[in-house]
């Protein structure tokens, strides 16, 4: 597609990379938090629940600003992490972090709903067959919540593809490093007459996301078919 310049292609590639890693890294903690919220009663449960929803409630710019305060080079965590070689500020990793955090509540909710729908009696049956808590989770719970995990991953991925406010606030707009598709689109929309270029990128973003969506639907159907008939 020669109608995209190298900078646009870079944005497309970056967005995919960011969304992929954001989703991948958000999944394990997402599953843990979802299971904890769905199944456990622990002190501070409501606080965790609140924190998870925070990125949804806050204006994205505020989330980005908070990320900057936390993970920036001068941030309390960012400084410490920098010493062990993990740097988020103004890096694509930061964009992934922002995207992951913005998508986290969506991920957690989807998985949590699935966990709540799992019949505990099946998990009990697994336990009587000798499976420890961890094994029950791996062999019974996880396969049964797979549709929810897929749904959550799709939401997080889609959100990561579209995330703008937190990303630009946290890691700025550095072409090739942090300029994801939405940032590139935003760039074009700011300039009179550049709408055409903006729409081109929107279309690319749609194609990619719809592809991911179709893939996930297909995956989910396969998983659901396996558990069919209940």
């Amino acid at each position: 597609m020669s109608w995209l310049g190298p900078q646009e292609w870079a944005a497309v590639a970056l967005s995919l990379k960011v969304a992929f890693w954001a989703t991948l890294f958000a999944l394990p903690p997402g599953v843990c938090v979802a299971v904890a919220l769905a199944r456990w009663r622990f002190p501070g449960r409501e606080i965790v629940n609140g924190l998870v929803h925070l990125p949804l409630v806050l204006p994205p710019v505020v989330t980005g600003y908070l990320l900057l305060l936390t993970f920036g080079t001068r941030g309390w965590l960012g400084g410490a992490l920098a010493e062990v070689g993990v740097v988020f500020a103004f890096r694509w990793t930061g964009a992934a972090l922002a995207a992951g955090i913005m998508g986290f509540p969506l991920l957690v909710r989807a998985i949590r709903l699935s966990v709540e729908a799992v019949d505990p009696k099946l998990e009990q049956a697994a336990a009587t067959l000798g499976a420890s808590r961890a094994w029950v989770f791996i062999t019974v719970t996880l396969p049964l919540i797979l549709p929810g995990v897929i749904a959550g991953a799709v939401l997080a991925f889609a959100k990561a593809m579209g995330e703008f406010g937190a990303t630009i606030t946290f890691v700025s707009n550095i072409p090739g490093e942090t300029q994801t598709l939405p940032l590139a689109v935003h760039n074009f929309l700011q300039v009179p007459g550049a709408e055409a270029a903006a729409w081109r990128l929107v279309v690319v973003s749609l194609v990619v996301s719809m592809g991911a969506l179709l893939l996930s639907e297909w995956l989910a159907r396969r998983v659901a078919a396996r558990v069919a008939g209940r």
Partner: protein
Amino acid sequence: VTVFAAASLKGALDEVAAAWNGEVQISYAGSSALARQIAAGAPADLFLSANPEWVDWLEADGVALKRVDLLSNALVLVAGADDPRAGLDQLKGQDRVAMALVDAVPAGIYGKAALESLGLWEAVAPRVVQADNVRAALALVALGEAPLGIVYATDARAEPGVRVVAEFPPMSHPPILYPVAALTEAGAPLMGFLQSAEAAEIFTRHGFGVIAE
């Protein structure tokens, strides 16, 4: 009266509006969003843009309006308040430079033009972090995330967390102009007040240059 104004005018314009004895509602957003909304029929009486291009765009789009260039601004290089450096030469170091979006937001566009005309752009470009708007760029410097920043003189004055390292020569970039456009008859009186001496005093206090008739 409903005023659509570029977000970067907020501090000064709020004061001017308060000084005016009439009902004013000001909607602050990016100039591009506001211009598009006006084109889409927004009930704005007055439009203060952060650059002339969006007013040109509106005129080209067939929106009837009456415009004047109201304010001007200057571009400065800033650093953290406790950073003792001075001079545009600081740009030649290895420090990150915070700017507004260099291809989209006026402050960024002017900044890029200035750097180009000074022959610095090639060297600086890889170190530029582009914020959504000039205030965000300013915040990056104030927070210490970026040691240097290129912002408007008005911003540098308002933010105690930064100090001016150098001013860009006015000739190094196109003139920084804030046009005001009256879109309805109702907007005319306020437009008049914006051009008054009383308003000029407030704008000047915030660091703007007031363009005489």
